[in-house]
């Protein structure tokens, strides 16, 4: 084998502490090194030409470049090698800049280390094997998980690009939290009015297959080739027959046994229900847990009134399998439950605010329902306890958020804005009402956001008090909010009729288990992790899985929508090609010696290991061995270290190569 060695000065970045000509001279003496040279800027065009010319002139089989980090210019040098006819994986980089010249002062020590680093790379390259990129086909269909505004946007964008979409929503209707909101900041336009047309569009789009009241059970496969198992929960209503007339709902005798979760438990719903009147699809669900039929076998009122015979008490959950090429996760958020928490919860709760104890201490979403024209009070601001119009409301921001002692350090981002909006709405509806807002800081970054908050203060006379609330207690039908005005430097007490807590946004229930099902990482709060916080914000680290909306971190509507469009375009970019090229750094099993213990299967984070039958000449299975699906394998190599008989090798980092590096230490 003929090896070429190229030492880069990187201007003076390397050569100021590493004697580059000496490194090149020493390398020239190593067995196998045919050509060794140092140059001012290897990554420049002349530098690359130097490499290409040397490859041609000396007939080199492999090259080692001593330069900056491989994360920087590995691709550059590999491309140079390819254009000169060398396999890109016959290129090794010794990191002489970040790991040597920049971190050491002593020229002798740094030069010696540089020589040793080069020696290791030379020994490795001697054992490198040419590798070719893996090509995998792509199924051009997207799975969108979550039917909130982010999921809706992602589904519509992808479908409008001409690709099929499977939209899975766990609730009976799409719409998500946005459908619960009264008005939206900073324009104060009605949430339902802008959302409902989108929901209808999803429902009618020929490319979108809508699966509501369904959950993703299992995800197998890999980018371009996912196989998704979806459980469609039994509605007990035949969807093909139901016309959505709502007779069953009106006639259902169970009126007050279940809270309406869409109304944030401020109202009841019958045993057969649609979450809200504009639900998509407009098909009711029978709640088995409260329905009399499931308890006693009697009633059947809904069956009697349904002229389409759509009620089907015997309906069972069904399992559906979809082949998709990309997954967009848009599972959204829920609100921090501010009630007292059990000891094992990672959150502490706010027992001191009396949430759950006082009926007029409510959270932000409950206020949204009270303020909503379609809500339980038809938009009139009334107290849940006695229906009186509150004359004084205390809003408290940062309940849960930015509070390490309660378990959450992050800012929930939207609360400053929606609290201002809610105080504004209250002042618009109750002209003699007083609105107080306890805040830590006002974070109103965004187009027209700061102006909006100023409007609340200046035009709507909302009173902002900078400080925290220590306690809330009831006295003579009022809620005494004890806090501190840190700007005035004195304690304050507000005798409010109602208290609204802007509680933190936390990930949806089951976000962590969904993450494990799909195989994507999440942070300590349960928000899904993006591949890179700045440069790859909508991709997860698992190829082919994209993130949209508040499942990644707290977000407002415009951010969620733009992230959803970004995720959709990522999927569309993926679908622009018919096959996908992958790096060939994957594990491979030596079937002759595999003993079939399948420890590799247990440790593989991606489920890439399958059971393969090895057959003899007569077609009779004589042993089972592990087989690694090259499309699924991400090349971590955990299986190679776990394999006791060393029957698995990771291409590009095989044991021979690593041993050579160790030997050259």
């Amino acid at each position, binding site marked *: 084998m003929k090896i070429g060695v190229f030492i880069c000065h990187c201007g003076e970045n390397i050569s100021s502490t590493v004697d580059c000509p000496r490194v090149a001279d020493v390398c020239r003496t190593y067995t196998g090194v045919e050509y060794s040279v140092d140059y001012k800027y290897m990554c420049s065009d002349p530098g690359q030409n130097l490499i290409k010319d040397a490859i041609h002139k000396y007939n080199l089989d492999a090259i080692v470049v001593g330069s900056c980090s491989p994360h920087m210019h590995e691709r550059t040098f590999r491309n140079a090698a390819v254009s000169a006819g060398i396999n890109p994986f016959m290129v090794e980089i010794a990191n002489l800049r970040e790991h040597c010249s920049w971190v050491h002062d002593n020229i002798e020590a740094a030069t010696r280390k540089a020589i040793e680093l080069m020696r290791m790379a030379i020994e490795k390259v001697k054992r490198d094997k040419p590798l070719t990129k893996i090509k995998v086909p792509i199924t051009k269909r997207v799975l969108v998980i979550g039917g909130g505004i982010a999921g809706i946007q992602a589904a519509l964008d992808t479908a409008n690009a001409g690709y099929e979409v499977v939209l899975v929503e766990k609730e009976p209707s799409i719409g998500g939290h946005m459908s619960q909101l009264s008005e939206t900041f900073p324009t104060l336009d009605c949430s339902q009015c802008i959302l409902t047309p989108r929901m209808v569009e999803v429902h009618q789009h020929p490319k979108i297959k809508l699966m509501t009241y369904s959950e993703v059970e299992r995800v197998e496969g890999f980018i371009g080739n996912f196989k998704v198992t979806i459980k469609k929960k039994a509605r007990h209503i035949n969807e093909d027959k139901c016309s959505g007339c709502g007779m069953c709902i009106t006639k259902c005798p169970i009126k007050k046994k279940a809270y309406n979760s869409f109304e944030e438990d401020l109202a009841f719903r019958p045993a057969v229900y649609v979450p809200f009147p504009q639900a998509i699809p407009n098909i009711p669900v029978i709640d088995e847990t409260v329905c009399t039929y499931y308890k006693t076998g009697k009633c059947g009122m809904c069956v009697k009134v349904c002229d389409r015979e759509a009620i089907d008490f015997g309906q069972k959950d069904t399992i559906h399998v979809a082949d998709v090429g990309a997954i967009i996760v848009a599972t959204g958020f829920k609100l921090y439950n501010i009630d007292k928490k059990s000891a094992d919860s990672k959150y502490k709760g706010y027992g001191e605010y009396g949430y759950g104890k006082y009926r007029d201490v409510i959270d932000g979403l409950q206020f949204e329902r009270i303020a909503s024209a379609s809500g339980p009070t038809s938009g009139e601001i009334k107290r849940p306890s006695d229906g009186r119009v509150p004359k004084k409301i205390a809003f408290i921001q940062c309940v849960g958020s930015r509070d390490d002692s309660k378990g959450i350090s992050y800012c929930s981002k939207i609360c400053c804005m929606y609290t201002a909006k809610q105080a504004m709405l209250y002042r618009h509806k109750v002209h003699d009402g007083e609105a107080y807002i306890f805040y830590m800081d006002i974070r109103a970054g965004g187009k027209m956001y700061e102006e909006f908050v100023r409007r609340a203060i200046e035009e709507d006379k909302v009173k902002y008090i900078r400080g925290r609330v220590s306690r809330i207690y009831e006295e003579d039908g009022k809620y005494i909010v004890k806090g501190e005005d840190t700007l005035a430097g004195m304690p304050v007490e507000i005798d409010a009729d109602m208290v609204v807590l802007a509680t933190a946004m936390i990930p949806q229930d089951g976000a962590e288990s969904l993450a494990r099902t799909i195989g994507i990482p999440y942070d300590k709060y349960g928000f899904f992790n993006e591949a890179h916080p700045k440069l790859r914000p909508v991709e997860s680290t698992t190829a082919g899985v994209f993130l949209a909306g508040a499942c990644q971190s707290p977000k407002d509507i415009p951010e969620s929508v733009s992230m959803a469009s970004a995720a959709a375009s990522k999927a569309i970019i993926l679908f622009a090609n018919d096959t996908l090229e992958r790096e060939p750094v994957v594990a491979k099993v030596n079937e*002759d*010696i*595999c*003993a*079939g*213990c*399948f*420890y590799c299967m*247990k*440790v593989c984070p991606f489920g890439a290991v399958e059971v393969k039958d090895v057959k003899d000449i007569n077609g009779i299975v*004589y*042993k*089972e061995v592990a087989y690694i699906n090259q499309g699924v394998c991400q090349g971590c190599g955990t299986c190679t270290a*776990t394999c*006791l*008989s*060393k*029957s698995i090798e990771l291409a590009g980092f095989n*044991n*021979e190569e690593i*041993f*050579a590096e160790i030997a050259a230490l």
Partner: protein
Amino acid sequence: MKELIKHARELLENGEVAAVIGYRQVSAKRTKPVIITDPEETSALVFNEYCLNNLAVYLTKARIKLLCKKNDKVLKLAITAKPCDVHSIVALIQENQIDRDTIHIISFNCHGVAKDFGFDFNGDNLASKCITCETHKPLYYDALFGEVKETPQASDTALARIKEIESMPHNERFEFFKSEFDKCIKCYACRAVCPLCYCQRCITDKTIPCWIETSSHQRGNFAWNVIRAFHLSGRCTGCGECDRACPADIPLSLINRKMSMEAKNLFSFVSGRSLETPTLVGSYNEKDNNELFM
């Protein structure tokens, strides 16, 4: 004993099993493993305090295939196993080497075995593993024989030895093990006798690249013994057969015992005790000890 013979005979005669792996007496204080396929020969089967071998070592995929395939029909394989040998069988099932459905486990109420052939069975000559044994009744079995008897009392000398080694400074410990490992002649009897060393090609036989230097010089011996112990960490069920097999008397099971203690200490795991618990290697807990890491 009669029940055992009767049971084995019935199994073979009824065509339920293809063979019975068991023990036969060769002299007063010595038994040998035997694989019986003929019902007439079952009379040779015994079970007593000299049934030392861990017969699970015979449960290799290849052997099962060879023995159990009778005229296009796959029969079960019966094995007589002490409760501790059942641990090995459990570990083998968990590592996909055998299928629980294909194995008929004939086990016994056990009150310990002698430390080697030829010794009287009493507290002084009790096998090391029996001193701390907690499973006198097997955890998994298809047939159970033998009467319940008291295990002779004995002091746990192996544990004392471990404590003694642990009290030595590192350089002495290193010298101690170096001299112990130096005795190794690389006969690989420890590997041959271990039921969990079922690999088709051992890591030490892998030559490109060479993982463990195969010559029996100090360095090669050291690497082999460390890696052997490591490969059994969290897997070894403590049958102690390696100790009995080693012609150089290297205290192999001492290291295995120490690693089993660590498995219990660090991960509350004992190998081969439950088919439901995931294996230690191949699983993880996010709350595993993190002290090691800066």
